């Protein structure tokens, strides 16, 4: 039986009648919500969902508005990347063990992919995982790991076979961030604070039960994560005039003295670009809902990065004297990205990461050119060479 909007409304109301949010501990409320299948309705029954169409999530959110919520910024990697990957590649036990506390926020996740020697060329990574009976012993260094300092688990890609070409010798794991040998050191960012970290893995022992997917199939599993990451970063819905343009427009309206012809023209251009990008996102979601995802998804993150950077730059410039100031350079470990809670200088600097994190804009253009437009790849020297023989 498929779940429709009316049935979902009824279910959400019945749930509320049984669990008074005012009289229930927030965590208990969230756990019960997960168990009622109202966490992410497109997930299967028993795993926080009802096997319903993804777009019906809005119905639930509408009904449960004002009830306890999780900090989605802090949970972004878990919700956006780990969960969809576990859903596709995890064993039944792994799904049962990980998804509930991931969704309720009891366990935070981070992403141990990038390394000092492997960023855009992720498949060249060097962190080794060597089998030892029922366990794997992991050694290596990861970098730019957002939120590692408060994470319980990580998604990890490591090299299990250095003798085959780079894409083929990788395996995907869930890494226990509390295991002996895991060391997290903060990395200060251009904003002053530290969202991301270096993570050193020294003789870390992971049970084979923590492997996700087959040995040697890590690249394919990682692709699922990365596709979801780009959708998560690029696909968030906003209303017309909302988001960053909303913040800029608000200042513009409130302070007539900052207006110049030049700024006006640039602001109008960016307003239009924001609106057409929003509409492209609306169209993309319609395609997804109709079961016909278009290739448009690959472009959304590219468009959002450019817009965020242009708008946040304009915001600093148009404030003049105020743009010369900065709110706070204190070196601290941040919980999540407080984009709108901070000042324009912070937004300007943080937006610089938008074209780097989750695949750089250059890499995204390569992907569009090759996978969407079908243009030939650059001549490559690394495809059929065993990883250990590659120049580094």
């Amino acid at each position, binding site marked *: 039986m498929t779940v429709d909007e009316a049935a979902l409304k009824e279910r959400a109301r019945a749930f509320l009648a049984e669990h008074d949010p005012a009289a229930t501990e927030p965590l208990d409320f969230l756990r019960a919500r997960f168990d009622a299948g109202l966490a992410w309705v497109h997930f299967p029954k028993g795993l926080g969902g009802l096997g319903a169409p993804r777009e019906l999530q809005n119905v639930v959110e509408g009904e449960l508005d004002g009830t306890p919520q999780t900090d989605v910024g802090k949970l972004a990697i878990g919700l956006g990347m780990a969960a969809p990957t576990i859903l596709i590649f995890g064993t039944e036990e792994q799904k049962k063990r990980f998804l509930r506390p991931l969704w309720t926020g009891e366990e935070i996740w981070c992403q141990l992919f990038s390394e000092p020697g492997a960023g855009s060329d992720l498949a060249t990574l060097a962190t080794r995982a060597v089998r030892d009976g029922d366990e794997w012993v992991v050694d290596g260094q990861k970098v730019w790991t957002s939120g590692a300092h408060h994470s319980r688990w990580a998604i990890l890609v490591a090299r299990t076979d250095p003798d085959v070409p780079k894409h083929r010798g990788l395996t995907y794991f869930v890494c226990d961030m509390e295991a002996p040998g895991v060391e997290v050191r903060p990395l200060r960012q251009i904003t002053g604070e530290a969202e991301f970290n270096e993570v050193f893995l020294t003789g870390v022992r992971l049970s084979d039960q923590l492997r996700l997917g087959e040995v040697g199939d890590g690249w394919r599993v990682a692709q699922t994560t990365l596709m979801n990451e780009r959708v998560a970063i690029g696909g968030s819905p906003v209303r017309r005039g909302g988001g960053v343009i909303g913040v800029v*427009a608000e200042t513009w309206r409130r302070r007539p003295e900052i207006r110049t012809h030049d700024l006006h023209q640039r602001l109008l251009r960016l307003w239009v670009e924001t609106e057409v990008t929003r509409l492209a996102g609306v*169209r993309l979601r*319609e395609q997804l809902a109709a079961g016909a995802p278009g290739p448009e998804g690959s472009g959304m993150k590219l468009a959002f990065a450019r817009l965020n950077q242009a708008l946040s730059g304009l915001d600093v410039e148009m404030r003049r004297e105020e743009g010369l100031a900065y709110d706070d350079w204190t070196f601290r470990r941040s919980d999540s990205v407080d984009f709108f809670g901070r000042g324009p200088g912070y937004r300007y600097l943080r937006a610089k990461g938008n074209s780097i994190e989750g695949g750089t804009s250059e890499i995204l253009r*390569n992907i569009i050119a090759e996978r969407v437009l079908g*243009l030939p790849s650059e*001549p490559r020297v690394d495809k059929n060479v065993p990883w250990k023989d590659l120049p580094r």
Partner: protein
Amino acid sequence: MTLLYSEVEEELRAAVRDLLADRCPPATVLARIESASPYDADLWKALARDIGVAGLLIPEELEGAGASAREAAVVLEELGRAVTPVPFLTSSVLATQALVSAGTDGARELLATLASGETTAALAVSFASSPYSLEWSESPQSPKAPGADTAAGTPWGAVAVEGGTLSGRVTAVAGADVADVLIVPASGALYAVEAADATVTPMVSLDLTRPISTVTFIGAPARQVSSGLRPLRAALDLGAGLLASEQLGVAEWCLTTTVAYVKERHQFARPVGSFQSLKHRLADLWMEIVQARAAARNAADALASGTDTATAVAVAQAWCGAVAVHAAEECVQLHGGIGMTWEHPVHLYLKRAKADEIALGTPGDHRDALARLADLPGPLGS
């Protein structure tokens, strides 16, 4: 509301596309622009009558199809993709909408003849008029609409009414050279004039597939079809909003053609399409077109439902005009020398795109309108 294409819309598209593939390949269009008139009367007959595009926007009780802006938009995408030299935009969208909005008996009579495609009409205003130039005309101290002849004193061309006849001149009129009937704004009202009673002088035009003309009236007999100019505004709004779909079609042809060429063309012992600087430019262009499709669909949908029209049209025009020009310019550049030849059809697209950028308001005109619509006012005292 939906930004996707319905099944009916896809069927209409397929019918138009098949016909154009057969009857309007680039070589045919290239040959036509060398002849006396670029318009393809036989092709127009097939489109207008057999597929029924002439009556698309005409109500069913007047023998039209009673379809909406969404269907017309799909037709325009295909016509843009083939730079088809037929008067669909000028007659079946602009002139038709003016008459549909006017709704008078005279207007309805004309619509019944337009529906079958037997008669073709044109709106006798400069193709460079924007929907907002009508706002100017309502306040006397504001600048005049493009195409206006200062001597005659009305912003809508230099046309005066006297004893049921029109006299004056309108410049840069699109579609007049193939029109049987001209719909003419004069003295705050709309008139219908038989083209045979006016002098239509084609100008040497930038756009070879949709040339403009100067239209001169000397005591031309005229019938009033609307006592006000509101139908004109409705026509310009619809025309501007739907032009975005034509621009989308132009841009898509340019991208597809360029991608195919750079995959084939070899230099330095590899396809030039494997060079990253070209790949990145084409990826960016692709994204602009993704956004253009969403914006054009949104405008067509808004025009069909009548909600949120002004913003949707202005956004689509502010974006799509520049995207079509960018696509055509990239198409020329990435073809190298062959892109500069008369023989290769890309110049037809470049000329259409550049003319379309000016038609019915430049992107800047539409951004100016958004300053008001989105409440983003300019500097104080401006």
